[in-house]
């Protein structure tokens, strides 16, 4: 009991240390640069307390829940030896976690507004909703494909840098053909697809797979799934823009 209490205290101190820089930046800019008093100090402090507690719980939950389940599933699928189910799982994980992502929904709605203003699609609400839904499905599809590609890479041991460089070349080539309004959104959509719960699970999947296949190194082969998940949306969204506009 004493031991777990001490572990908890240590975790809390760690969370506080993680949070200290943000607090320092906000306080400095408020007091020194903008020269205004801090509003609602009581609310600020309770909020910070919740953030510290929340971070501690989250990290603890990762270690006992998300990481083990991700890795054990990767091991079990690798042992089963069925390529089909492994690919199906990879796709489902990428697609399923992205399609309902709130950040993506926000970006898709914004993109529909841009397209309507540019006169690419009609300004009616129905057309905008349709455009936004198409974009969301495109991004979710691209993340599903990304995780599948990443898993195939781990299985085959393909070198990651050629694939990423190839992706970059594709992005650059497509940028010169894609409609101008979609470019900013396409570039940003790469960043919004990977949520805080998806990242640990996908990382555990990659590392688990790489460590259960002979001849793969968890460090050089296990990472890289998220890199694909943030590259393919750019390509797919620009493609969507070229088709839809």
């Amino acid at each position, binding site marked *: 009991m004493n031991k777990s209490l001490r572990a908890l205290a240590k975790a809390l101190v760690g969370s506080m240390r993680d949070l200290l820089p943000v607090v320092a930046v906000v306080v400095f800019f408020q007091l020194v640069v903008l020269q205004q008093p801090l509003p609602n100090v009581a609310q600020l402090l309770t909020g910070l307390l919740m953030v510290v507690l929340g971070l501690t719980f*989250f990290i603890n939950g990762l270690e006992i829940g998300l990481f083990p*389940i991700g890795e054990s599933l990767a091991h079990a699928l690798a042992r089963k030896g069925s390529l089909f189910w492994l690919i199906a799982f990879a796709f489902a994980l990428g697609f399923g976690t992205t399609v309902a992502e709130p950040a993506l929904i926000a970006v898709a709605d914004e993109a529909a507004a841009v397209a309507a203003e540019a006169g690419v699609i009609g300004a009616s609400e129905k057309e905008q909703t349709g455009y936004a839904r198409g974009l969301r499905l495109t991004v979710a599809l691209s993340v599903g494909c990304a995780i599948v590609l990443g898993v195939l890479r781990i299985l085959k041991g393909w070198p990651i840098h050629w694939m990423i460089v190839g992706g970059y070349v594709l992005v650059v080539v497509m940028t010169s053909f894609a409609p101008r309004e979609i470019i900013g959104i396409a570039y940003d959509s790469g960043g919004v697809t990977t949520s805080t719960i998806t990242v640990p699970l996908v990382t555990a999947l990659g590392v688990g797979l790489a460590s259960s296949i002979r001849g793969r190194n968890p460090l050089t082969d296990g990472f890289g799934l998220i890199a694909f998940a943030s590259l393919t949306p750019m390509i797919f969204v620009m493609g969507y823009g070229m088709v839809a506009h």
Partner: protein
Amino acid sequence: MLWNEVWQTLLGTLRDVLPIVAIVGGFQVLVIRRPVANLRRVLVGIVYVVVGLALFLIGLEQALFPLGRLMAAQLTDPAFIYAGLEQAAGAVHWSDYYWVYAFAAAIGFSTTIAEPSLLAVAIKAQKVSGGAIGMWGLRIAVAIGVAVGVSLGSYRIVTGLPLHYFIIAAYIVVVTQTAFAPRLIIPLAYDSGGVTTSTVTVPLIAALGLGLAETVPGRNVLIDGFGLIAFACLFPIMSVMAYAQISEYRARRQRARLGE
């Protein structure tokens, strides 16, 4: 009022977790067909993750986000930038926005240190590499990358230079570095681009970008407001590879000195 928000956030987080639990559970039951080891512990862990993330988001919404957004608006306000000075009609000089760049860098760095998904990747990387890639080294390297990226991204919005020039130039640097960086770090470096931008960083950075695009004369919110996140994704790749290159260089020099 607060309870309503707590409830909403908790529901939102649950909705995020639900597809994951459904997919993982479905595969476990239908395909693997074997009970999960330590099922109870895993379930407790998932509850911790949901509760922790919800608390984290509510706390941020209570404490930091309103202030951060207000700050982004105030710092980009022409009244602050031209305080006491006569603004030359319509002419904006990029150097007038120095506090904006400083704020962009500081907030990019500090929010990245607090980013839970980066923490998750750093924990894994330290474990997998047997401690060769330190948690703090990786996190600080990524945070420096985000700081530089967001700061440069703000400069781009102020000057109105096209986004894709910067992105293409950054790609060229990344590709060149890839050729020279130690092999071990490359996948991790590519990954760190995607993990930096989630719960903490995106809301504040997006507020900064939109604030800038709204107040700088001649910028269009819809065209110029986007793109900061792309910068925040690209620059960590460079800084993580640079971190590995510097560590390798120092290790080699030390070996050379010992050899003498």
